[in-house]
């Protein structure tokens, strides 16, 4: 028995030693970069990945979740082009998705998805540029292909290790671990390349770290609002595919150095003016009081505009605790003070008061809503509430 364990142990050790070599296997860069016009994928693996990505893109193009707004699409492309350069950006196909979460992704064939939750959370062109640049860096470095090859070699090691019985478990664990740590290494690599893009662009590179810091705070606020423990940002879990958010914010700040640049905040707000109310409404309906309250506070850094005040009032009214109804009524009154003809504010004020401490005043506010919007779709229903 001892002898058998001996050779198994030796083989196990040899394979563990070989694993890091597989982990660090880099993709051999061949010929043209993937963003070049008319680029055709090389190798069986790359052709297969592109074939799947092409099929996914055909489905994506027809998805009901795609926002078909050519002006918005052109704006996002202009930010991408200013970030990565005109030579690189033209090949990307941009799809803006109506999904209320912070995300963007780029497929190996150049399909760039930008989710509406991301557009609502970034505050300037420079911040959007940082995230788009990061996704483009994954694409340029063919990370999906490298990740696929790495996953395959890790699963080969796992299959062979399973023949070793119990002593193979350690090796299997090492292979699983290497799979996820490889993902983290790719993320760091993409962060570094995207920082290079930013440093060569007119944009302020400090925005990159700002985005991650705000995401940490929002996640904390969500957890607090749901009476859950906050996420730890300083520890990498075994299965984590991304570096910790704290590490990320830290090294991005370091890479950006003292360099500043154009934030493009006004241009960004102007480009998003049409969509922000819609994206805010999506966020309000997620039953995430803490996270949304934090987010609204961040968006209101340069002042509480009527749309942000309305959103905050609606957020409090929807949660509907007695104190929330008092806060909501107060916020609706602030909106009315800024824009006296805002019928929706009177509607919200009426409902908050009707459910809260002052139903008579609530009915008056609803009557005022009906006088401002006599042809409102819900006028018959609101009339019933005023009786």
């Amino acid at each position, binding site marked *: 028995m001892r002898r058998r364990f001996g050779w198994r142990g030796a083989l196990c050790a040899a394979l563990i030693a070989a694993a890091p070599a597989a982990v660090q296997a880099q993709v051999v860069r061949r010929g043209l970069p993937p963003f070049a016009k008319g680029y055709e994928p090389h190798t069986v693996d790359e052709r297969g990945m592109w074939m799947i990505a092409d099929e996914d893109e055909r489905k994506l193009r027809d998805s*009901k979740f795609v926002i078909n707004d050519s002006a918005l699409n052109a704006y996002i492309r202009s930010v991408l082009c200013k970030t990565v350069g005109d030579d690189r950006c033209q090949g990307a196909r941009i799809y803006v998705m109506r999904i209320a979460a912070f995300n963007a992704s780029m497929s190996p064939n150049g399909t760039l998805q930008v989710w509406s939750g991301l557009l609502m959370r970034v505050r300037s062109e420079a911040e959007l540029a940082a995230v788009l640049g990061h996704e483009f860096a994954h694409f340029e470095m063919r990370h999906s292909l490298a990740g696929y090859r790495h996953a395959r070699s890790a699963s080969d090691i796992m299959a062979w290790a399973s023949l070793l019985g119990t002593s193979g478990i350690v090796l299997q664990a090492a292979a699983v671990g290497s799979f996820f740590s490889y993902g983290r290494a790719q993320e760091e690599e993409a962060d570094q390349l995207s920082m290079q893009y930013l440093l060569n662009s007119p944009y302020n590179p400090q925005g990159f770290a700002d985005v991650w810091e705000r995401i940490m705070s929002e996640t904390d606020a969500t957890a607090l609002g749901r009476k859950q423990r906050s996420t730890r940002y300083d520890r990498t879990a075994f299965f984590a595919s991304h570096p910790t958010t704290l590490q990320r914010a830290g090294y991005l700040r370091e890479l950006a150095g003292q360099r500043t640049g154009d934030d493009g905040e006004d241009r960004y707000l102007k480009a998003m003016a049409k969509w922000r109310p819609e994206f805010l409404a999506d966020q309000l309906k997620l039953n995430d009081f803490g996270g949304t309250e934090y987010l609204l506070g961040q968006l209101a850094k340069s002042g509480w505009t009527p749309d942000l005040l309305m959103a905050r009032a609606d957020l409090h009214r929807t949660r509907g605790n007695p104190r929330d109804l008092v806060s909501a009524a107060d916020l609706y009154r602030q909106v009315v003070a800024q824009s006296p003809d805002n019928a929706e504010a009177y509607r919200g004020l009426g409902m908050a008061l009707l459910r809260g401490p002052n139903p008579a005043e609530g009915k008056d506010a609803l009557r005022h809503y009906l006088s401002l919007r006599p042809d409102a779709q819900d006028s018959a*229903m609101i009339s019933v*509430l005023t009786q």
Partner: protein
Amino acid sequence: MTRPLSIVRALLAALLLCSIAPAYAGNKLIVAGVSIAVAKSAMTVTPEREWNKMGARPGRNSETWTLDGDTLNDLTFYGGIANDATLFREVNKRSAPLPRFSSTMLLTDIPVLLENSYRIALNTSLMAVDSVTPTTFAGEKAIHFTYSFTNQDGLRRNGEGTAAIIAGKLYMITFEAPVIHYFARDVASYHQVVASVRFPAVAKRK
């Protein structure tokens, strides 16, 4: 030795079957023209056509009927959702908790509660309440609303709902079906079921 072991095995098998029975509870035919209590509540309806009651309930106080299958036409009864309860079973309580009904809600808050619950449970931002109008529900003051949504399957569906808050509990009937073919074909059957709602006097005590 064999016999006691086989008895033990049979008992274990019976226990196992009992424990998984709710998951396999079969669908049941609802016959036409007979009054029936729905959603484990005092609410009764009398359908004029046959329906199929789904074995799986969306939540503790609800049940779903269908004609062709639960993704093609869904008639759902909510029979007295209590204060601080969700409309249906949580999908992911930790990372995506559903909003809860409150007995102090106004009737106009009910379509919003349904919309927000659907958005979270179906993971879609393509959901809208299209209209709200006053109505009555078994003689009670109620709200009728229409809505539309697109699920992750990409199919656009229309829906209608009628809801009332009676003795602090939410009673609601919704109907939804794909816009293509099914909704227009079957919505009249929903209207008929809503018109047939009755509450025995005991449930109406406020």
